[in-house]
Every structure is written in structure tokens, then in C-alpha cells.
């Protein structure tokens, strides 16, 4: 036992909880950013935004229904639409059951879609290479270290997989599609046609705060359970406690990665919207074309990391083409002088055209 007794028995159990909270806040920040970006493209891409709303409501209602199922309240009504979701229990249960079902509603959407993706990921990768989180610890700092190590080990495998993803493999392609779908919907906040009320990160946090403030005893009860589990795993010298929180941390990482990828796609859509037609289609054609060309080229001239190289070439060529189109087909990267020059040239050309037409 290296740590002080007060550290071991009071602060150590808090380490993975704080670590998880940190990740959860990062997740919330990314979600808020995604909500902002989606609201920016709402007018031009209403169907896409409606689809993201539907996904968000779908996850939320499923989580709520799951909450009622876990608490054995039953489900009497289940309605999902693009802008509305409703789950009604068969039996109205009060107390702990109500609290648990509400916890599923507010916190579930942050983790449950990621859980599906994690299961898919575990099935995809070599199961022998996959290791479950472990780590027996006795102090706050070592708890944080173990939590971090578990997350690092998982992140390494996850990012290696992502950087080697093979779009010619239907299972990998399916994983990528699911990753985007999870990223688009992992957002309890609703984006509507009209802003009737402000629904954002603060609103989400308020819901969670209300849930906790409504029944503070239950929160205390949760902490007591957490401490008991920690003491049991500590005395039995097992890493169950940190493993549990590390597992939730994994889900958070998956959610963050999926949101980042989705945000990159939304940013790409937003930029291509600025291009005039038919140039706006070109970046969309470049994505599959560059990847297929690279894959075929590397199939005939094999090198190591062919999947990663193809991915990098695809991403870079798409960025480059989009940048060049934005530079030469829009005024985005032009200074005022350049814009003036371009306008003058346009005027001159118009005058020439008019002269020609009058002569004719």
C-alpha cells in the first residue's frame, strides 16, 4: 500500500469518476459544436438536419424505453417522428425506478449508441488482440493513471483500426456508416425550423442537474455503491472498479471520434455549398475516385500500409480540390483588391458582350 490511508479510502474512488466526467464534458462540448454547425446548414440541407433530428430522437426514445424496461414499468406508448418522440410507461413507478428511467433518458443517449458501435468494433477486430480494462490501484493519482492507461490502450487499437479502415471491405464500410450515423444522432439537443426555446449544452446539463438535484439522496446512494465496489475490488486486489469506469470512458472516446468525423463531413458540406454549380459536385466525385484509383494502383504495386496511404490520399486530394475550387471559383480567399479586380474584369467582359450584341 503506497498511498496514504485517507487518499486510499476517500479520494482514490473519485479518480475514475472525475476522469469519466472530464471525458463526458469534452463530449458535450463537441456535441454543442455539432449542433451549431448543423444549424448553419439547416436552410440548405433541411432533409439532412431532419434526419439528424430523427436519429437523435430515435436514440433518446430507445434509451427511455430501455429505462422503462429495466425498471419493469412496461411500455404502453411508443411514438417516434422527425421532431417528436414519446414513450409512456404501462405502470407509473415512483422513487428509484422513476429516477433510473429518467437517468436512462438523459444520460443514455450519450453512451448507448456508442455501446452498439463498441460491440461491432470488438466483433470486427481480432478478439485475441482485444484486452478488457484492468488495474488495481490504491491512490487518487494511480487511479487516474490506470484509468488513463486503459483509455490509451483502447484508443490505440481504435485509431489503428480507423487509420487502416478498408472501404472495399463491406464490414469495415458498414462500421464507418454506423460511426457516422451514431455521430449524427448522439445529440439530445433538437435542431428545429424555428427557435422556440434555447436548447443547447446548457439545457442538457440543466436536465442532468435537475435529475440529480431532484433526488439528492439517490446521488448519495450511487456514491455509496461506488465506494463499496471500490473497497471490494481493492481488498480482493482486482481492477473491477477502474475497469467499469474505463469501459464508460471507451464509450465516450467512441462518441467523441464519431462526432469529430461527422463534424468534418458537415464542414465539408458547408464548404461545398459555397461553390457554384456544377463545380460543387466535383469534391464529392473526388472522394471515391481518388480512393479507388489509389487502391487499384497499390494493388498492382503493393506497399506497406496501402489502406492508410489510400485514405490519406483520398482526404488530402479532397481537401486540395475543395480549397482550389473555393479559391478560384468563389471570393472566399480573395482580398478586397482581388475582388475589385475581378469585378472590374467582369464589368469589362459584360460591356464587350453588350457591344457585340448591339453590333449584331
Amino acid at each position, binding site marked *: 500500500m503506497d498511498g496514504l490511508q485517507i487518499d486510499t479510502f476517500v479520494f482514490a474512488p473519485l479518480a475514475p469518476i472525475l476522469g469519466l466526467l472530464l471525458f463526458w464534458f469534452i463530449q458535450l462540448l463537441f456535441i454543442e459544436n455539432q449542433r451549431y454547425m448543423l444549424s448553419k446548414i439547416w436552410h440548405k440541407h433541411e432533409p439532412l438536419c*431532419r434526419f439528424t433530428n*430523427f436519429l437523435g430522437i430515435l436514440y433518446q426514445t430507445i434509451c427511455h424505453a430501455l429505462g422503462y424496461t429495466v425498471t419493469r414499468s412496461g411500455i404502453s406508448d411508443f411514438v417516434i417522428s*422527425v421532431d417528436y418522440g414519446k414513450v409512456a410507461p404501462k405502470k407509473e413507478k415512483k422513487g428509484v425506478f422513476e429516477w433510473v428511467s429518467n437517468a436512462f433518458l438523459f444520460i443514455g443517449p450519450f453512451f448507448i449508441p456508442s455501446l452498439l458501435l463498441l460491440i461491432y468494433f470488438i466483433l470486427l477486430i481480432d478478439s485475441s488482440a482485444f484486452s478488457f480494462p484492468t488495474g488495481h490501484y490504491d491512490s487518487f493519482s494511480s487511479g487516474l493513471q490506470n484509468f488513463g492507461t486503459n483509455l490509451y490502450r483502447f484508443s490505440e487499437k481504435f485509431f489503428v483500426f480507423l487509420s487502416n479502415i478498408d472501404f472495399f*471491405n*463491406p464490414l469495415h464500410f458498414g462500421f464507418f456508416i454506423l460511426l457516422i450515423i451514431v455521430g449524427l444522432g448522439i445529440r439530445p439537443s433538437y435542431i428545429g425550423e424555428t427557435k422556440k426555446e434555447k436548447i443547447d449544452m446548457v439545457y442538457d446539463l440543466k436536465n442532468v442537474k435537475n435529475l440529480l438535484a431532484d433526488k439528492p439522496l439517490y446521488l448519495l446512494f450511487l456514491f455509496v455503491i461506488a465506494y463499496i465496489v471500490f473497497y471490494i475490488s481493492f481488498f480482493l486486489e482486482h481492477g473491477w472498479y477502474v475497469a467499469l469506469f474505463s469501459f464508460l470512458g471507451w464509450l465516450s472516446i467512441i462518441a467523441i471520434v464519431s462526432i469529430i468525423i461527422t463534424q468534418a463531413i458537415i464542414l465539408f458540406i458547408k464548404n461545398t455549398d459555397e461553390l457554384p454549380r456544377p463545380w460543387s459536385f466535383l469534391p464529392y466525385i473526388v472522394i471515391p475516385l481518388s480512393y479507388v484509383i489509389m487502391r487499384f494502383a497499390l494493388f498492382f504495386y503493393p506497399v506497406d500500409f496501402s489502406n492508410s496511404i489510400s485514405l490519406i490520399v483520398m482526404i488530402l486530394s479532397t481537401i486540395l480540390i475543395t480549397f482550389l475550387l473555393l479559391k478560384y471559383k468563389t471570393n472566399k480567399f480573395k482580398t478586397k483588391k482581388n475582388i475589385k479586380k475581378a469585378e472590374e474584369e467582369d464589368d469589362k467582359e459584360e460591356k464587350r458582350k453588350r457591344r457585340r450584341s448591339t453590333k449584331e
Partner: protein
Amino acid sequence: MTRKKKEREEDLLRNEHIERMLSPHPLSFMKLQSLCLFLIIWGVFVYWLVNFSDWKSLFSGSEWYPVILWGLILLLVGIAAWLMAVRFSIFILYLGVFAGAVGLIIWQNWEAASSLFILVYSVAASIVGFLIVELYRRSHKYIISNLRIAFKGGIFTKQERTVRYDKITDINAKQGILGQIFGFGTIIPITQAGFGLGSDKSFAAGGVELGGKKAKLFGLAGGGKEVQIPRARSYYELHGIYPYKEIKKLIENLVQDNVITPYQQEQVEFQKQQVDIQKQMRDLLKVQTKTKKERPAAALAKMREEEQEEEEEEEESEEQKEAYEQEQVDIQKQMKNLLKKQLEVKEDSSEEDEEEEEPEEEKKEK
């Protein structure tokens, strides 16, 4: 003026003008398109499974293994769709695709490259399927005019049906998730004749009703429930129209404009009665003028001969006059009663309106 426009204008009735001309949204036939989509995805997956996956050794036993796997799943999906959507045609379609593939492989001896053949065949069949669905979609034309809705369609056999707004009793509107996302939906106008209503039948042991005959494949026991639901073929409903909300409102307004309210019905009855009375009056006047004309002619001819009878005639005409006057008075009384009734009805309706308005005003005040 284009030929199509000319044809359309020739089809119009008197005082009719077109409000909207519509055709289904490209994604509104997603059920059919998803059949093609599944075919393409499954074909690509089988090709990958046989040639590039970790399980490719499983298919090394025979060249027919990929074809069997591909066909088996295809038929299973067909059966599942048949049972779930009660559409036998899906199973027949997949059976036809599978039989076509097997026939081509045997005929051309392509057993050695069966997996590649499956990929190419699936993609080709899907493209053909997509084209047929698109052709089918484009064959639909819905014309909403101020008097009626015309449903036109058919690839080979041209079908047409019109529904007048005054015959529409109910409007059924539905919008799926895809419709909610892309803003399209289906509107079924239900008429008094039952046009726009279909039925769902369920059987005790999973039998499937096929055009009145029960399929005995799974039907161990017959009987069941029949539920009338709004349903029509895509040619007889406004299938997958865009923009859904706008069109729905337009149709509801047009139906509303063509429906006679009870008050209007009463007014029409009064007008009918008025016309009858006026007719009676006209007939009476005709008879009066006729007798007046005839009377002097007869009097001149028989002036001298029948001087003695004059007094008697005068007495008769006075009697006739009295009779006519009596009849006129009766008709006038009828008119008076009718007008009274009309006024009463008007007053009643205005009182009802005031009563309806009052609470609204009270609410506003509150």
C-alpha cells in the same frame, strides 16, 4: 403551345382550371427501390465473402456454393417480405432473379466464375430494377383542378380516374419517416363509393390471402378478421406527393369549398320552393291573360245575337275573377310563409353564430 399542354386543356371541363400537376417524389417508392438495393448489396457482399474474406476457404468445395448461398438468402428475404408485407410478388421477383442466374450459369458454363457472375448479375439486375421503378414512378400523374382530382398512369395500360371534391367524404393522409425527412407524403381521398378503402386480413395460423384465394402453404387454419383501412393503388391515391403539407391543405380547402353546409342546403330547398311558386304564378297569369283575350273576341262575334246572354257571361267572368283572385291569394300566402321560414332560419343561424363568437370574444378578453 406544346402537345401535352394542348391535350391537358382539351381534357378540362367547363370553368375548370388546373391548380397543381404532381407526380410522386423520387424516393416515394423506396419499398420497391430497397428490393433492388438489397440485391446489389447482397451481391457485393457475397463476392467479397467468397474472394476476400477470412471465410473464403468455406467456398472452395464447389463452384456452386456461392450461388446456393446467394440464392438461399435471396429467397429467404423474399419469403420474409411476402409474409410481412403480404406481397407474394416480392418472393416471385427474387425467385425469378435466382432462376435467371442459375439458367444463365448453366447455359453459358460460367460455373468457374460464379462469384464474379453473381456480382455482375446482381448489379445489372438492380440497375434494371431501378430503371423499371423509375419508369413506373414517372408513369404517375396527378392533376388537381378546382373541380376534381384526376389520377392518371400506367406504363402499358393507361389508367385514369377522377374524383370530384363533392364526392369526397374523408381524406386519409400518411407520412412515413422518409417522407417526414424529405417532405413528401401520401393522400388518399375516400369517396362515398368506398374508393380509397382496402382491407387487411389476418389468419389464425399465418395463412396469406391472395386475391380472394387463401394460400395453403402456411395456412393450417382459415378464418380471421377483416379490417377496412384507407388503401389504394398508387395510381388511385396521391402517392408520395411533394410538398405534402401544402398539397394537403390545398385539397382540404378545395373539398371544403365544394361541400354544401346544412344552412346552404336549407337555402337551396327554399329557392326550389320559390321557383315552384313562381311557376304557379306564371301559369296562373298565363291562364288569366288567355281568358281575357278570348273573352272580347267571343263577345264581338256574338255581340248582337247574344246580348241577352251578356249579363250571364258577366256573372261568369266575375266568378272566374273571384276564383283567380282566390288562387293568387293562396300563392301569395305560400310565398309569405316561405319568406317567414327563410327569415326564421336566417335569424337562427345568425344567433348560433353569435353564440359561437361570444365565447371566443370572452376568451380574448380574458
